[in-house]
């Protein structure tokens, strides 16, 4: 068998990362260019791997077998993430090449970024939990250094401390989960764990899954320990882009990689739905109140990662992976282009007042959106066969979001041409996500468990999720009618503060202390 080239992607980065040790300072000669070139080579290797997979099928590289199991995986899931991370990595390194020019620790920055990127590339190709554990640990260390790129900033120190706490507690949880799984099943190999778990989990296995979920929750900045993510804008923009596009979703990737094990624990799945759903709605509502663009984007990430956990909990694993890919690309772009926010806000004001939909228009839009959903769902059922209740429920939650687009076009003040355009946009959006979801199922479905058949617990969760998302969507469409009511003043204050969870965490870990007194 030919060795999959994508496995070598991390190695392409390390020589240049090592070079940075020699030239850590300002304007380090060709290093910035070499950094981008290395990232591009990594992307080329990843893409070559994709081609190999296409022709040769999945494979596995075992470096060390036995109790200390070091192996790399090569399949549709790993190659997706490898190409994604390598792509975002190239974009980010290219950006950094220009934007970091002239910084005092320019060379060190490139080195740390490349090292982090290499660790992420190992993580997403891990064949065993042990490899993942190590990669997570390395990411925690290098990322902390990046967050402290301006070490004199008190806010950076606070953010880095908070990050390190949460991240390394997550590492601890992963170590426990790994030990428990190794103890239960005698292996940390992901493939073997998957097949072993199909026979059900002993109680220790359930505990292990609980730790896996704790790991994922901490590393995806889920409620209530999301605070570290919303405060790490203290490092240069490329760090934020890499963090939000390539690192924050690693927790979700961990769950996807251990999907067969996790799904064997219905309680864990329920916890994921509850935690994910709560985080999604919480993050999304807080995001509405944030006026600083990067901060709003960070809250958006909290919400999107929550939504991804919710998808995991519903057993919609391919969709969760799709969400990771889609979110990464969007969020990388959003961070890197956040300098355009001044012009973007000006553009919002340029066409004059926003047409506010009335209650009747909102009701109508929800009706229309549901009709649209029924039609498109029927169409896709004809093409691709029936969907699981979970998938249908997720579709309904998303269509509530689309209803807002329709509602804006139905406002009394909206001209006909605008109504037509928003209507078309709604249709295009619906078709686009149905198509992407179909594609996701085709590409990754074979490697991931199907959604569990819905029992009472599953149904209860589905109803809860649909109803709560529906209510928030409804409130969101009516938003201008109540957002400025005096009765909501306090609510807005509390939400803008993220319900003080971060302040409480600060108090616990001394985040309010002066730098010198800590």
């Amino acid at each position, binding site marked *: 068998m030919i060795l999959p080239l994508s496995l070598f992607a991390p190695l392409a980065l390390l020589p240049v990362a090592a070079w940075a040790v020699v030239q850590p300072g*300002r*304007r380090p000669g060709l290093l910035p260019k070499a950094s981008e070139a290395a990232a591009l080579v990594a992307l080329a290797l990843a893409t070559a791997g994709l081609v190999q997979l296409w022709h040769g099928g999945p494979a596995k590289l075992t470096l060390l077998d036995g109790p200390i199991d070091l192996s790399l995986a090569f399949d549709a899931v790993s190659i997706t993430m490898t190409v994604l991370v390598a792509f*975002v990595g190239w*974009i980010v390194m*290219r*950006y950094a090449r*220009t934007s970091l*020019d*002239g910084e005092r620790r320019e060379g060190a920055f490139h080195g740390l970024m490349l090292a982090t990127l290499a660790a992420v590339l190992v993580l997403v190709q891990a064949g065993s939990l042990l490899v993942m554990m190590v990669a997570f640990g390395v990411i925690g260390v290098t990322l902390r250094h990046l967050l402290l790129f301006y070490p004199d900033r008190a*806010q*950076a120190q606070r*953010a880095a401390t908070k990050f390190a706490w949460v991240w390394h507690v997550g590492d601890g949880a992963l170590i426990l989960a790994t030990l428990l799984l190794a103890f239960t099943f005698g292996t940390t190999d992901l493939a073997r764990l998957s097949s072993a778990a199909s026979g059900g989990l002993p109680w220790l296995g359930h505990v292990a899954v609980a730790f896996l979920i704790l790991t994922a929750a901490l590393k995806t900045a889920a409620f209530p320990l999301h605070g570290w993510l919303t405060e790490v*804008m203290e*490092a240069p923009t490329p760090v934020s882009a890499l963090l939000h596009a390539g690192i924050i979703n690693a927790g979700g990737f961990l769950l996807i990689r251990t999907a067969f094990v996790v799904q064997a624990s219905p309680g864990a799945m329920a916890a994921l739905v509850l935690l994910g759903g709560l985080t999604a709605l919480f993050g*999304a509502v807080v*995001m*509405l109140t944030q*006026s*600083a*663009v990067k*901060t709003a984007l960070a809250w958006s990430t909290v919400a999107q990662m929550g939504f991804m956990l919710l998808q995991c909990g519903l057993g919609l694993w391919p969709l969760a992976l799709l969400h990771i*890919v*889609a979110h990464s*690309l*969007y969020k*990388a*772009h959003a961070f*890197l282009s*956040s*300098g355009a*926010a*001044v012009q*973007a*806000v000006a553009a919002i*004001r*340029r*066409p*004059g007042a*926003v047409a506010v939909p009335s209650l009747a228009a909102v009701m109508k839009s929800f009706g229309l959106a549901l009709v649209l959903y029924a039609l498109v769902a029927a169409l896709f059922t004809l093409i691709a066969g029936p969907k699981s209740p979970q998938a249908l429920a997720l579709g309904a*939650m998303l*269509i509530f979001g*689309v209803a*807002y687009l329709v509602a804006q076009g139905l406002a009394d003040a909206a001209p006909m041409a*605008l109504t037509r355009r*928003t209507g078309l*946009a709604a249709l295009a*959006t619906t078709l*686009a996500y149905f198509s992407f979801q179909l594609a996701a199922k085709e590409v990754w479905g074979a490697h991931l468990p199907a959604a569990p058949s819905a029992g009472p617990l599953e149904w209860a969760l589905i109803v809860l999720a649909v109803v709560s998302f529906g209510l*928030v969507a409804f409130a*969101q469409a009516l938003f201008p009618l109540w*957002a*400025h009511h005096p009765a909501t*003043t306090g609510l*807005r*204050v509390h*939400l*803008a503060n993220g319900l*003080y969870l971060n*302040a409480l965490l600060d108090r616990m870990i001394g985040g309010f202390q*002066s730098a010198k007194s800590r």
Partner: protein
Amino acid sequence: MLIPPTQISPDWISAVLNAAQTACRAIPPAFPLEATVAVNPFLGQTGEDLATASARYARVAGASLTRPRADYAAQIAQSRVTDDDLAAALIACRSPLKPADLALLKAKVTVEGLASPALPTVADLGAENTGTDWPALIAKTFGLWAAGHFDRGQALWSPAPGQGAFAAWRAWATYDLTPEIAGLTGFCAHVAAAPDSAERAILRAADRLGLTEAASETAFHRLMIDLGGWAQHARWLLWQAQLEGGSDATLMDLLAIRLIWEEALLAHTPQIQDQWLGVVSAHQMPVAPTADQVVDTILQDAVERAHQRRLASLLARPAPTDGQQTPKTRPVLQAAFCIDVRSEVIRRALEAQNPAIETVGAAGFFGLPLGHKAHGTDQVAAHLPVLLKPAMTASSRAPAAAEQADRIAARAARAFGRFRQAAVSSFAFVEAAGPLYGAKLVKDALGWQGSVLPQDPCPQLEQALSRADKAATAAAALTAMGLTSGFARVVLLVGHGASMVNNPYKSAYQCGACGGHSGAVSARVLATLLNDPDTRAGLQSHGITVPPDTLFLAALHDTTTDTVTPFVDIPCPDHAADLSRLDDWLGGAGHITREERARHLPGATPQTVANRASNWAETRPEWGLAGCAAFIAAPRAMTSGLDLAGRTFLHSYDWQADPGFATLQMILTAPVVVASWITLQYYGSAVAPAAFGGGNKLIHNVLGGIGVVEGNGGRLRCGLPWQAVHDGTKLAHDPLRLSVMVAAPQEAITNILTRHPDLSALFDNGWLHLFALNEHHIAARYRPGQGWSDEPPIGFAA
């Protein structure tokens, strides 16, 4: 209780409120980044000199308004600054604290002056005593409130509009639990029980803080500095309101808010009372410079004298004036540029294309007081210096159907934007549109998104001018540029703008005379006006005859790419040959300019310098006005052919054609003032970046469409970012106060100064240097507060 229970008396009340007003005036306005212009950060200190202002800022901000001594020492060591410069600066200094002789001064250069930290606030003292970082907490919670309150459209859920800042903050702070969680128990109740008007809150807090009449002003100023850019934004609101003839209380509101914090913290940490009383008595001392600050300002003055000396010797060199000495033939092209220092380079390059090309310099709005409605909007943007108010409106409208379609498209895009941002829809957005961002990433990373400046339809005045008004407006504009006879076949009116992507500071690179917008609109309106047969006919009565074959052509100089694009807004078949020649010249001039600029931009080559405009990661798309140091109002003949290195504002002016000195008065009161604001903004951002600079671009977090914060938030940052004044290894802007050189009789200049006390304050307190030019020589220097000295022209002794 050591503080007397109360000191409230009618005199005290009026004194404290006056001090609050004075402190408000000490804050310079900061224009929102959407259309930002340079503002003199020392706008509130023009009544005092640099040393006194330095003392003031040392007290209220811990900032020094001069460079570190090591920088001066280096310049002396490199002989850029000579003993003569130092001696002249020493002699000119009027402070009794100055060193007795040159040797003493030079000895001082080798030792850094004592750094003086700002006087602490109650929050600072509290932090020292309790270990809780109160200043950071205030910055954070106040910043979060202010971000929402001043947001212009970033967040979907903004606070209820229409409330004054003080009332809005009280409504916020009575709910915000963060201070209580951080340990300031009872803060919500304290806010709820605070007086309900800002004035009474200020008085109550000032009383409880034991502020005396004398201590109040700098104590208040200190607190406003603590609010950073938020205070400057509020000062801008006041500025705008005053321009409209109204007023705005936001700045006083912010002071009241900050005082309520001080009041609460003093009550919370009674152990700091003694220390605080000491601070109050320090605030009571009159603001006066220390000997160190005096030495620093002498050194700064010496550096400026060295620059003036070099400029003088450059001017004194007989310029290659062949073109002027040969009998005057009709020029092949006349091109009017903005006085912006970036124009100097391209003017020189354009003149090099053909000896019969003439260029002139004038303020880039060409004297038209325009408001502009861009294509697709009814919002009016002011395209004129911020000292003035628009008096006419031009709109760039496409034909009705196209205009309507574009507006619908913009609204649909906005609806989709809200869909992307809103709570539940954001999930649907990511699932449906997220994957498409892969393509966008590639496009933007490779700079394929293009960065052309918008090409709106030709702006038309909404209210047509009468024939007389057309002629009067045109005559005024032509007179201001000194272009009243000898017209070429093509007269180019060049506005300037800067194309760039993903840069929050984009408007800072545009034309300052056009209010932070591109100068294309003003140029096109003026060209249309000057080509109007009515105007041409009416100009005769103003004594200006424009030949019938003269075509006025607007153009846009893109300062990041150095392309100059003419707008052919009317058919001009007779000028086809002229236009094609023009293209060649403009292309050649752009080439030379790019070569010259590439030398100064790190990592740039003449071939790649224009790519910076479309690079979304670029923090230094160009140098803007960095380096600006001098303003010359003189005939171009005096400066043509001289390499002024893009550091000089050039205003064309011929005093012999200005019998009543009306044009001179206009130049001194408007363009000179604007140029001084720009220079002093660069000065402040370079010498005291922490106090007057915009911070580090790499961690900028754009806020509410108005400005930036660094990192997680807190204080709004105003002024220029570090990357705009520093190239990574050294300052790209040599911080100098502007040297204004005017070719006009000294009495005429003095007369104008006498009539404009605000203007003469700038010169008398040394914020600007003033020189009278005579042919190619500096005839006299204006000595601050002492009138002219015709001491032998500087720089010619050798």
